[in-house]
Structures are given as structure tokens and as C-alpha cells.
């Protein structure tokens, strides 16, 4: 856009200053709401990623060949050592832990209950699983432990068990025979969610191998420093782990999460879309009024030879100026709000009664609104995009001005 035309467009904003101010305020408010909504949406994804990862799934899990299809717990990794080496070569890895799993029956006295028994590395496990950090009674497993067990309070209640009680664990061995072993309860976990408390039943990994008769590692759980790098690290690991071993993300492991997150994402987008539509209609209305007010002027400009396309660009430039000012104002107000919500978090535990279990994970209902460099391009896109779209109709309306009106009106 040429120089005088640019001055024309920008100075035209001052013709009806109050209307321009209202349009700028509308754009700014839309921008703030869109920023908060987007930050909230991204923060909610982070909450689910955190919940999934720290409930034992990890951000990534290396699983044996075929495990993805049938989740057969008797399968073992092709080469656990090589997988560990590949994982440790990744810079964003925060914690790694191996596990094995088996379906088991626990019996104490006359009481019996079915559980998923998990063999763990007592040293590494607490770094990747926050469930086992909520020890209510006793202690967690120690490196030198053997024949010890930590279980959730829901299981302990079902069995009527307490610390130092002996429990009989029975599993199906490699040849279909029943294998038994006695374990002593050293710790009881109480997370606040009965569902989560029913999922914790851990023994040292070497005891698990002795009980099931199956050596090797069933899975390796990987926790990353930044959950947003999940897919990138997955892609890197997919080519470096032992051939045949598979890399799954926390979303793959928790399909319920994935569906729920998509649903949330769609509803957030709908709400954001409604907000933007309201802003869009407000700006369109203000711009149309501005164009209608200057209909004679546009007719004269057309009579002087201004093309319709130039007129469209003039109106769009005018709108763009409003968008830039509105966007800057929106960022000036919205960015501190988003930063504040990112720092303190939005705590919904008052509404939800503390942590809750969802999809096999313990969800801590605190959403830390996402804050990052994305706010600048996002707010700019919202402010400028919405303003430009809103101004398309007024601009084309101006461009359709009949120049013959100029002389008639001028009479």
C-alpha cells in the first residue's frame, strides 16, 4: 500500500474515535479470551499428560513385539539393555524404569482378590510413579528387599490386611501350572482415589521373575522433562530401540485420555470460535458503519479512478491498523493474565473433591494454563485474522460503490 493511501487509511480511524475505540476494545477482549482459552486448553492437555505419565505409564513406554495388539503380560522385550542404551541417549529423558506385570490372586486368610501384580525396580520406580509416593503406612520397597510388597489401601481393605501381614500371591506359570509365593506387606499407599488405590500392588522385579518363572523385562517406562517432546522422542526411539520392540506414547496407552482430550479440545474450539464470531461481528458492524458513512467519499475516489481492489486494500489496511492496536492491547492485558494462571494454576480440587482417577491414572485437578512464545503469534493471528475477515464484507461493499453516485450526490 502506497504512502498517502496508508495515511488515509490510518487517519480514517480517528474520524469516529469512539467507534474505533470500541472496535479496538472488542478485538482486545476477543484476543484475551482466546489467549486464556487456548492456554487453558493446552494446560489441560499438560494436566492429562502429567496424570498419565506420573501414574506409572510414563510419557513413553517401550513394549515387547505384539504387546500393542493384545497387551499380553507374558511377553518380554527383545533386548532390554539395548533399549535402555537408546533411551539414555535421548537428551530430554528425565527418568527410566523397567517393569513386569502379571495377573495374580492375593489371598490372606479367607479373603481373596484379583490384582495386577507389578514387578518394579524399587530405586527407579518412585521417580516415575507418584502413586507410590503417597505411602500412607509403612514404607516403600527398598533396593535390597526380597519377598516384600506394597499395595494400595483399597486392596488392603478388601483383604483386611495391614503392615507386616503375609499375603499369598498366586499366578499362572509358563507351563500353565499355578505358582505361589508369600509376600510381606511393607507399605500401604493411599492416593485419595479408590480406583487408583486398587491399582497399586508392587513387588521387587527379581521376586516377580521368581514367582512367574519368566525372566526379562516386560516394559520400560520413560518420563521426559517436557511432555510436548513426546512424539519427537518417540520417533527418535522407534529407530534406535532393539528391532521388534515397540514405542508407545502415553496417549496410546490411555485411549480414554485421548478421546477425552479430543472431546475437550473440540468443545474448547467451539467456545473460542463463538467468542471470535462475536468479536468478528462487532468489528464487521463497526467497519460497515465506517464504510457506509463514507459512501460518498468512496464514490468520489472511484470517480477519480481508484480501482475496487485498491479500495478493498484501503479498508483492509484501516481494519489491520485497528487489529494491530487491538491485538497489542489484548496482549498487554492477556499475557500477564495467562502468565499468572500458568504460575499459580487453576485449582479445581474444591469442585472435584481432590484428586480423581480417570482412565487408570490419578488426575490432580490443577490446570496450569500454558504460557510460552506461542502467545505472541497466536494473539497476533487472532487479532489480525479476525479483523481482516470481519472487514472483508465492508471492504467489498466499498469496492462496489457506483461512481455515478458521486456526481449525483455532489449536485
Amino acid at each position, binding site marked *: 500500500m*502506497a*504512502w*498517502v*493511501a496508508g*495515511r*488515509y487509511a490510518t*487517519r*480514517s480511524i*480517528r*474520524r469516529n474515535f469512539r467507534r474505533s475505540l470500541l472496535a479496538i476494545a472488542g478485538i482486545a477482549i476477543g484476543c484475551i479470551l482466546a489467549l486464556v482459552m487456548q492456554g487453558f486448553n493446552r494446560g489441560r492437555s499438560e494436566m492429562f499428560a502429567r496424570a498419565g505419565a506420573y501414574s506409572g505409564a510414563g510419557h513413553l513406554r517401550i513394549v515387547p513385539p505384539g504387546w500393542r495388539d493384545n497387551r499380553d503380560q507374558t511377553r518380554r522385550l527383545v533386548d532390554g539393555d539395548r533399549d535402555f542404551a537408546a533411551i539414555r541417549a535421548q537428551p530430554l529423558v528425565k527418568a527410566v524404569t523397567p517393569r513386569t506385570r502379571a495377573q495374580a490372586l492375593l489371598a490372606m486368610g479367607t479373603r481373596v482378590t484379583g490384582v495386577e501384580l507389578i514387578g518394579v525396580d524399587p530405586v527407579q520406580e518412585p521417580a516415575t510413579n507418584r502413586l507410590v509416593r503417597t505411602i500412607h503406612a509403612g514404607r516403600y520397597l527398598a533396593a535390597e528387599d526380597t519377598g516384600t510388597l506394597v499395595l494400595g489401601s483399597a486392596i488392603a481393605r478388601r483383604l483386611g490386611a495391614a503392615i507386616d501381614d503375609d499375603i499369598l500371591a498366586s499366578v499362572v506359570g509358563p507351563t500353565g501350572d499355578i505358582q505361589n509365593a508369600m509376600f510381606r506387606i511393607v507399605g500401604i499407599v493411599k492416593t485419595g482415589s479408590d480406583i487408583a488405590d486398587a491399582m497399586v500392588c508392587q513387588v521387587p522385579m527379581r521376586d516377580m521373575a521368581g514367582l512367574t518363572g519368566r525372566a526379562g523385562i516386560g516394559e520400560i517406562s520413560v518420563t521426559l522433562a517436557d511432555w510436548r517432546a513426546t512424539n519427537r522422542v518417540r520417533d527418535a526411539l522407534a529407530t534406535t530401540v532393539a528391532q521388534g520392540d515397540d514405542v508407545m506414547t502415553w496417549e496410546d496407552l490411555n485411549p480414554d485420555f485421548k478421546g477425552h482430550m479430543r472431546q475437550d479440545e473440540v468443545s474448547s474450539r467451539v467456545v473460542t470460535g463463538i467468542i471470535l464470531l462475536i468479536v468478528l461481528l462487532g468489528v464487521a458492524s463497526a467497519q460497515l458503519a465506517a464504510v457506509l458513512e463514507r459512501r*460518498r*467519499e468512496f464514490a*468520489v*475516489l*472511484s*470517480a*477519480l*479512478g*481508484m*480501482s*475496487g481492489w*485498491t479500495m478493498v486494500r484501503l479498508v483492509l489496511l484501516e481494519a489491520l491498523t485497528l487489529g494491530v492496536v487491538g491485538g497489542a492491547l489484548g496482549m498487554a492485558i492477556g499475557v500477564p493474565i495467562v502468565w499468572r494462571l500458568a504460575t499459580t494454576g487453576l485449582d479445581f480440587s474444591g469442585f472435584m473433591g481432590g484428586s480423581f482417577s480417570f482412565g487408570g491414572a490419578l488426575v490432580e485437578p490443577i490446570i496450569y494454563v500454558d504460557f510460552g512464545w506461542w502467545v505472541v503469534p497466536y494473539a497476533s493471528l487472532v487479532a489480525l485474522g479476525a479483523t481482516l475477515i470481519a472487514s472483508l464484507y465492508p471492504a467489498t461493499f466499498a469496492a462496489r460503490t457506483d*461512481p*455515478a453516485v*458521486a*456526481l*449525483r*450526490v*455532489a*449536485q
Partner: protein
Amino acid sequence: MNEQVVHAHGLTKAFGGGAQQVWALRGVDLNIGEGEFLALVGPSGSGKTTLLNLIGALDAPTAGELVVLGQTIGTLSRRQRALLRLRSIGFVFQAYNLVPVLTAVENVEFVLELQGLGAERHARAMASLDELGLADLANRRINELSGGQQQRVAVARATAAHPKLVLADEPTANLDGENAEILMHLMGELRTRHGMTFLFSTHDPRVVKHAQRVVTLVDGKVARDDRQPGESPHEILPAEKGHAWAGPEPRRLSSAPR
């Protein structure tokens, strides 16, 4: 006669359709040569503005032939007509119609910018304002200028690019006698200096007085196309069908050329 700028033959223009159809022009024949200073007169509703709009490529004729600066208006697209106006035709309006948010020089520059002029456009705009005695007021906003000054800026805007044809619709209607005289005098000088063709639609004897040729339209047709030597505007204007003509008897300025 010099090279022909406007050639109209059997030119008609109708508005509306069916029973509502109104014929604004009913077969106008008119030729205008290069460098003419022509006044188009006639009572209200006689078709002056419609004819000006057609010649200015603002509208397309219903029937008949209209060639302006070698281009047949009826065959041009909207974009082609806009280009013709931009490159070859200047407009002066009764109500000045300057852009209020721009200064005097920016108003002139705006049109030059649309024509694609680069760095030289400011100098051209200033030169044009200077020709009209407005160089000192170049940086004033439009609302800081008097009516006469605004109309001179409008003339500067219309003539800065030296178009071949300048159309002026009632250019003096909002001006007092002195400003009207000054404006007509300056436009006469521009015509002499740059060879532009001026076509005015007017009710004003002060404009008619300066015109080299007077064409009278009545009921959409050319009723008269001549001027007798020494004939005063008031002798021409009231002669038409007893219509009442606006405008005072002009006082003669010694500096205003005829």
C-alpha cells in the same frame, strides 16, 4: 477543429425499466475538440449531469455512440472505465469532495499516487497547488481552508496529472462571486498552459461568461450549440423556454480574461 476529445452521436440514457423508465438523454449529438472551454447549460433535469457522467466514463450509455479520447465508452468494462478516468480525465465537483483526513497536498498526491507516480509526485502536487496559488496552504487540513480554497485544491487534484479532459459539475455553485471569478480565471489559465479540455455543467452565468462555447440541453437533447460574439450569459440563459436561471449579473473583473 483540433483533435476530437468527445464524439457523441444519438446518445441516449435511460434509468429504470418498464413503466418506471425515465429517459435522461434522448439522442445527443455532440463533438468536443481538444482544448475547448465548454459550458453545458440547461434547466434542472435537462440531462447535464447524466451527460457529464457518461463523458466521464462513470456510466455506460443505453444506446448511441460515445467516444471519449478514442475509447468507445459503451464497450469498456468497469475496470477499463476506471483506468480511463484515472489516466485521462479529471473531475471537479460542486461540493469539492476532498478527503478531510488528508492535507491539501496529500489530496493532490493521492490521485498521483493512484496513477503510479513515485518520488516525483510530491513535487508535482506542489507545482499544481502553486499554479492555483495554494502553495502556502499545502500542509493545511481541508477543514482549515475556505470554500474557495477547497475548490482550488479540488481543481489542483483534477489537473495535477495534466489530464486531457477535465469535467466540472457546477464548480462555482458553492462559491461567492469573487471566488467564482478567481476559479474560472485559474482554470482558463490551466487550459491555456497545458492544453486541457474543460467541460462544465452549470447554471451559473459567471461560468458561462468565461466559456468559449455554450451547449444548451433541454429535455435530454441539445437545444442550442453556439455563442454569438458579444452575447452575454444572461442573454443565453433566460432564452430557454422561460426557465428561471440562477445567478447574479456578473461584475466584470479587469484581470479575468475572456
